[in-house]
């Protein structure tokens, strides 16, 4: 495979609200290759979930294109149907994503029947192997259970098993681990990662937790969003050790760490304001400029920055970092 597997080409999504139109996602481009792992991070309202839903074909972009193996998915119906099988979305909330009136077998049977024409004993054997793959053992015990009989972690495993019924090539998981305990969280992350490696799946993981993002995408990339825009896209280790955008730098400096010595001596970045602007009334120029310690009047409050490459190859949407050809972490002295 030479070209990208799945691609967002300058997609935007606007919503009408009683107070006016908002652009939840603005001109996001991203291309993913086979077996790649990427995390989309950002705070609430940054557009990461909307981006993930567009990537999974669940939400049609207001403008821009979603491409799968080079074909425009929303252009023709046949492509969309094929795409829906190839790309699976695993929902954030395991309590809301499973139908409470269906047993696990009843949840897994319809996609197996519809997409793979499996019925009866053959379908049952397939379900058992799926449940085994997601670590629900003994699998036969789970088939007749209802979601309320399972723990949060087990439900998430069922949701992953359901996604696997159609042999997807891409899994988009939206904070699939945020609602559960530390230890269960890690076992789910490990499960998703291992499945991705075993079945050569591309995984997109959406989270607000940078430590989780680093862990999940350790050989991949991290995309940072702020107020609907991509502000940085970089290899994972580079992003966490030497962030290029002042916003990513502030986030990484602010993360509380599970290590008393590190967390108490970490260098902080002070922002000019704690207030996140409303999507209804975005600041002119760079949307981060009212809070940014590097912002320059006459530039950052006037001109909208676009993603550009630093000499080391990562992309950042910051006038100052791009002009200085240095990451913000360097410019702010928090490396």
């Amino acid at each position: 495979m030479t070209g990208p597997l799945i691609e967002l080409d300058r997609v935007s999504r606007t919503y009408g609200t009683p107070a006016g139109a908002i652009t939840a996602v603005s001109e996001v481009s991203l291309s993913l290759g086979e077996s790649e792992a990427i995390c989309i991070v950002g705070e609430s309202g940054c557009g990461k979930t909307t981006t993930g839903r567009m990537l999974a074909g669940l939400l049609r972009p207001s403008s821009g294109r979603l491409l799968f193996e080079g074909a425009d998915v929303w252009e023709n119906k046949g492509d969309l149907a094929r795409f829906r099988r190839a790309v699976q979305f695993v929902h954030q909330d395991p309590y809301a994503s499973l139908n409470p009136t269906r047993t696990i077998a009843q949840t897994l049977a319809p996609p197996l029947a519809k997409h793979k024409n499996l019925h009866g004993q053959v379908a049952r054997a397939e379900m058992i192997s799926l449940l085994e793959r997601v670590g629900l053992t003994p699998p036969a015990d789970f088939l007749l259970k209802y979601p309320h009989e399972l723990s949060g972690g087990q439900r998430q495993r069922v949701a992953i098993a359901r996604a696997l019924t159609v042999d997807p090539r891409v899994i988009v998981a939206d904070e699939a681990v945020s609602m559960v305990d530390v230890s269960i969280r890690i076992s789910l992350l490990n499960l998703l990662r291992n499945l991705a490696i075993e079945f050569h799946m591309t995984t997109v993981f959406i989270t607000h937790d940078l430590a989780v993002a680093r862990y999940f995408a350790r050989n991949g990339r991290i995309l940072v969003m702020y107020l609907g825009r991509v502000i940085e896209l970089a290899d994972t280790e580079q992003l966490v050790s030497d962030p290029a955008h002042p916003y990513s730098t502030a986030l990484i400096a602010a993360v509380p760490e599970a290590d008393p010595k590190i967390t108490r001596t970490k260098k902080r970045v002070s922002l000019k304001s704690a207030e996140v602007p409303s999507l209804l009334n975005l600041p002119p120029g760079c949307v981060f400029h009212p809070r940014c310690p590097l912002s320059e009047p006459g530039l950052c409050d006037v001109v909208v920055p676009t993603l550009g490459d630093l000499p080391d190859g990562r992309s950042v949407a910051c006038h100052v970092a791009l002009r200085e050809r240095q990451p913000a972490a360097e410019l702010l002295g928090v490396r």
Partner: protein
Amino acid sequence: MPILSVRNLSIEYRTRRGSVQAVRDVTFDLEPGQTLAIIGESGSGKTTLAVGLIRLSSRNARVTKGEIRYDDGKRAFNVLSLDTEMLRRFRWADCAMVFQAALSAFNPVITIWEQFLDTGRAHGMDDKRKVHERSRELLELVHLDPKRVLSAYAHELSGGMRQRILIAMALLLDPRIVILDEPTTALDILTQRAIIDLLRELRGTLGFATIFISHDLSIAAELADRMLTMYAGRIVERATVDDLFYRPRHPYSVGLMRAVPRVSGALGGVVSIPGSPPDLIRLPQGCTYYPRCPFHIEQCLEQDPPLIPVDTPHHEAACIRWEAVAAAVGHDAKAPLAERPA
């Protein structure tokens, strides 16, 4: 002299299946001004314990044993023997609780000012002017604009603002102890940071003691002086924050530490704890962590091990294998466990 001494506290819930031993034989001290973090998975009993300390437990909960002794130097009493009126005064005037900043922590149909007023009234602050004055001071202390916030309804405010308001409200009667249940869960990173820094600052200016309940180890690393690890309703380790992070002696604490990914430092091996916690209705014989423990030996099944002193001072673990744990973890570790390969 501890401001709060909990002795052999046991709390159970009655359910149709039988009684759930949610808190078992818990003993600890909280010194004035000290910050104590209680960690453990869900179902470990940490919330039952926290809520039990101010007797806010649900109706089917029952304290079966123990004592909760409060002593601020002027007054001393057993919280468990307070009558309704005295208990009302104790909650908030002596010991306040900050719940998670969910919308459900607020009354949706009254303004924030009315909630301050209600809180004041419910705990014996009848002078409206005084409540108003104090609310304004506290809101300023938590870096909010009192003018804007007091006339607002909860749904008009962000999660970070709501958490600040709950903290301000908890401080209304100048309590000596503040209990916080998951104070930063579900908040964004920059908001979490702001709340953590705020708590540190308030603790410094107002001097109250703090008990944190959290499954997030990073907030414990930030703020705690001492830590308790709870498992299956019991305290399985008691230590200073540095000892617990760098020199844990109970295999469960080790498991919790190893399960946390980090942003700084080496990535190392992050591993989950296999299995799940025991059924608290039918507790197994011996150590409740036995089935999940990589250090277990036959002898662990003989009795539920008591807390015993380990190799560092003021440090106890409920594990007969703590020396084997120490040998595996090291005696002078300076980096957290997760940075070492699993």
